[in-house]
């Protein structure tokens, strides 16, 4: 069995070590790197991200992330965004009125959740569309979320979004073409998360 080469993009934000550990567990040849050539050449690129949208977007730009991700997607080469690594795929992020431009692969803005307790921290359920690659064979499982912002509307192809709810519905994952992303942390979601990682990896082979 081949072990697909996966690069966890190390642009300074996100728990890259945990992402690498979970990918190794499900059989990837996973490395942590910020090298543009590696990021382009690998079978799959993981874009993690924690903290503020503005900081992550700036970090990603400084590491040529938008160009690398754009080139990969144009060539149909898989990219997986995690948490803020998902959020930056949208048009923009709005943090207390500070609007930061995202990569704009997906339409719409990332805005603050409305709930009595924030961040949304813990294990929540999701509703995946039929035919989802990421959630194939994954039953009624919970996934680990830590975030205060999310895409609360989906303007992409119907049936490409997985939804969750915390003070209102938000996009918990999305899959269009070569781009997949999760608002939750699959690398921290126990066996259910490893199944999602394994599904993404299986599609790279």
């Amino acid at each position, binding site marked *: 069995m081949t072990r697909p080469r996966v690069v966890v993009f190390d642009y300074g934000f996100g728990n890259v070590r945990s992402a690498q*550990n979970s990918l190794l567990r499900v059989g990837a040849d996973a490395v942590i790197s910020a090298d543009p050539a590696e990021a382009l050449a690998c079978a799959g690129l993981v874009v993690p991200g924690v903290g503020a949208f503005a*900081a992550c977007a700036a970090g990603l730009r400084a590491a040529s992330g938008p160009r690398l991700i754009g080139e990969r997607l144009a060539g149909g080469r898989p990219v997986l965004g995690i948490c803020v690594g998902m959020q930056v795929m949208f048009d923009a992020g709005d943090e207390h009125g500070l609007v930061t431009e995202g990569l704009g692969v997906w339409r719409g803005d990332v805005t603050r959740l409305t709930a009595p307790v924030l961040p949304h921290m*813990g294990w929540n359920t*999701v*509703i995946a569309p039929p035919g989802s690659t990421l959630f194939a064979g994954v039953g009624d499982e919970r996934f*680990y979320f830590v975030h205060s912002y999310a895409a609360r509307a989906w303007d*992409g192809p119907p049936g490409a979004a997985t939804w969750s709810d915390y003070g209102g519905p938000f996009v918990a994952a999305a899959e269009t073409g070569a781009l997949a992303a999760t608002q939750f942390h699959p690398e921290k979601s126990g066996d259910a998360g490893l199944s999602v990682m394994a599904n993404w990896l299986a599609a790279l082979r």
Partner: protein
Amino acid sequence: MRGSSVPPSGPAYPGRVSLAVRVIPCLDVDDGRVVKGVNFVDLRDAGDPVALAAHYSSSGADELVFLDISASHSGRSTMVEVVRRTAEQVFIPLTVGGGVRAIEDFDMLLRAGADKVGVNTAAIARPVLLAEAATRFGSQCVVLSVDARRSADQPSGFEVTTHGGRKSAGLDALDWVRRAEDLGAGEILLNSMDADGTTAGFDLAMIRAVRAVTSLPLIASGGAGEPEHFAPAVAAGADAVLAASVFHFAATSIGAVKQTMSAAGVPVR
């Protein structure tokens, strides 16, 4: 057709999506070894934090907390190694606290694979540490640990303590929680020094008081002795419940606690 798609709806939807209350075992680690370790049947070495973490993860723990109680400098570097090895094998969130003094400690622990870092005394000494850590690493990984007890000296009736409850920090506990939230803490770990060690149940009055002043996720700690103790802490306002000895001494299990919580109507994983 492209258009703004809406989330799935219908009678089955609302009830199916809800955040679970987290059940979190805490391990005291001294120089790389679990203090008060127990012999679970499937564990060869009850003192190994990595093995115990894996055991708890497979038993349904929603998160783990390592509390480093090492006095020595070498103990701290040992802890980083323990975190690194745990993160290789255990795929649930890990919070590490104890002896965190500076931004460099956050950096070292997060790089090793911790998801959150708990800070207590150092934030009391220099509150801006919370802001610095939140700016650099994000609020989501900054856990303020508060050891509180009743005191007539403070307006709210609750004061902050240090040194395991032996010394007063001279701070009102509710004021401190409010201030920590403003500075950028992402979660509050509230340990009642009045309830701690009693195994008579969580400190519901203290949980209610803190819940009323913060919109951050609140982890309740101190006093758990049996599975029936956990649901009332949630009713009082806790988003997560933490316990140590009640799990370690196999007085009860994560599964039994979750079953009892679920029977009381609390959503669990």
